[in-house]
């Protein structure tokens, strides 16, 4: 796990440069909070990339889910809406994400359209639908209760959103490592033809993997509404690339068949810690973009080296 060593080295380094501000519990909480939503997207992306696929639509699916969820909560009372509206908003968000995931999965597994193209198409479709529903104007009437609890509240000092992300990560990690669903995911990414011949229903499984990623995008969309109290339609344009970068930095092979959720967690935290550390140390913001690019290429370089070694 050289990537873990790199993360620890980065943390130690910033702690030495700025012991009073970087290495504080409040700052650790902030970094976790900022990484939480991306972490949820990256969990789904890990499954997709292990099948040798890719999902570019996650950011748009997040926006779409935010919009339908906020619209439903608006219809059920807006800022003053209660628990029933929030539950409805949650269900609608996850369902909205799930629908786009199913669309992706169906186009890819039954339509045989390459994942890159299929999800590039739904990236535009989901965002366009979100803009159509709102006429391009953010929905800002979000239940205050939701914003104060799930969005910005804490339990024993830990933000709710971080707890949700931790639960998602744990479940995703267990599913990937210990269930048949996880084994099928690896099998398809290693050798799709062999998987088919050994009796795995490849098309049904791919459909499920993309549906899962969509549903997680929906969950992230709900958390987004809860946190920002608006739908941020113009935002999240680089979430897809950031999630992919995190997954790849974490050791998931862009060629499929290899990957872990633990790696993804580390891979998402490296850019998050770098950005926070650079700002805290007062480094010119442009450096952060450079640094993340370097880490990404180094990570893929080692993936290719490892593949060459194992195939020898």
């Amino acid at each position, binding site marked *: 796990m*050289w990537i873990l*060593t*790199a993360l620890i*080295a*980065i943390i*130690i*380094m*910033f702690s030495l*440069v*700025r012991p*009073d*501000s*970087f290495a*504080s519990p*409040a*700052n650790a909480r*902030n*970094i976790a*909070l*900022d990484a939480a939503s991306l972490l949820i997207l990256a969990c789904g992306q890990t499954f997709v990339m292990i099948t040798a696929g890719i999902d570019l639509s996650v950011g748009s699916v997040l926006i779409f889910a935010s919009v339908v969820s906020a619209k439903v909560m608006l219809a059920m009372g807006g800022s003053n809406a209660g628990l029933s509206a929030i539950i409805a908003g949650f269900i609608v968000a996850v369902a909205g994400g799930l629908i786009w995931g199913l669309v992706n999965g169906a186009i890819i597994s039954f339509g045989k359209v390459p994942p890159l193209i299929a999800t590039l198409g739904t990236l535009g479709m989901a965002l366009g639908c979100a803009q159509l529903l709102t006429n*391009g*104007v*953010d929905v*800002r009437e979000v239940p205050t209760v939701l*914003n104060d609890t799930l969005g*910005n509240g804490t339990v024993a000092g830990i933000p709710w959103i971080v707890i949700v992300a931790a639960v998602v990560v744990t479940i995703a990690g267990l599913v990937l490592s210990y269930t048949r669903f996880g084994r099928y995911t690896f099998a398809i990414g290693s050798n799709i033809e062999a998987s088919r011949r050994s009796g795995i229903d490849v098309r049904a499984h791919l459909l499920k993997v993309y549906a899962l990623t969509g549903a997680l995008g929906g969950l992230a969309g709900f958390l*987004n509404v809860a*946190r*920002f*109290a*608006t739908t*941020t*339609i*113009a*935002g*999240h*344009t*680089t*979430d897809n690339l950031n999630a992919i970068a995190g997954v790849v930095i974490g050791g998931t092979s862009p060629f499929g068949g290899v990957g872990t959720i633990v790696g993804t967690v580390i891979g998402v935290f490296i850019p998050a810690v*770098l*950005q*926070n*550390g*650079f*700002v805290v*140390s*007062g*480094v*010119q*913001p*442009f*450096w952060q*973009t450079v*640094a993340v690019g*370097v*880490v990404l290429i*180094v990570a893929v370089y*080692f993936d290719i*080296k490892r593949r060459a*070694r194992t195939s020898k």
Partner: protein
Amino acid sequence: MTTFHRSARAAALMSAAFAIAVTGCSSGSGDPGVTHVTLIQGVKGNPFYTAMACGAQEAAAQLGVRLDVTAPDQFDASLQTPVVNAVTAKRPDGVLIAPTDAVAMRPPIKNLISSGAKVVEVDTALEDTTVSTAHLTTDNQAAGKAAAAKFNEILGGKGKILALSSAPGISTNDERVAELKKALTNYPGLEFTGVQYTKEDATIAASVVSAALTAEPGITGIFSVNSPSTQGAATSLRNAGVANRVKLIGFDAGPQQIEQLKQGSVAALVAQSPYQIGRDGVQYVVDAVAGKEVPKSSLTPVMVIDVKNLESPEAQNFVYKTDC
């Protein structure tokens, strides 16, 4: 196996060394006596914010405060929030910020204030005006009015006008367009044909303008409220071969916009005073830290620049200084 591990460890050390080298460049001393101020721009690398940083730098040098400047990659609340959180961890005495969303940026800014920082909003603002200590912005209403008057002059009192804005919900841009629309009703020959959104992306602006010209060939004036849109619109007009017929009024007076003005691809520019916003903003935040009273809300002037008045000393004052 062993070689792999050795090189892996080397790579980990390399990345750490790289990061140390980078942070080493600018990590100053943590003098307890010095006032620390951070400017959080709306987006990296926009001349408007660069000029604002220059103004802030000048005031910081005069007042003997330490100034850091930081910004998100895009004008996006989900990207600016982590930046604000990181600044909060630094516990600065004062912060100047251009919020990227009037609602979404409220929780992180409130959090920043509760950590003890005085916050002054520059350019854009939160919807909830009770959060920050002060707000400095361009007189956006005057900007919209001035653009309408200029269109009346250059179009000879007759024509259809399209507005280009970045995205709905950005207080400053909305105000400029709304005021233009209102002011155009004073000129019976001029007609407002609507607003198109470009996400501050020159490529999107170019295609939006091409489409709008096809849909409404009678358009003779375009008002663009941000510089990437102006650039895209100018390209599109040139490609369509109608640059002589359709007059473009842009926003901001950075080096590139001035170049466009000299070339004639832009008829006029509405220049803001980012340098003054940055300079006064630092002054306000330092006063607020010292416990002095500061004005809650202030407007900075605009000026319409064209080739005729470009060389005048007054116009030269409004041209953005981006090297400091």
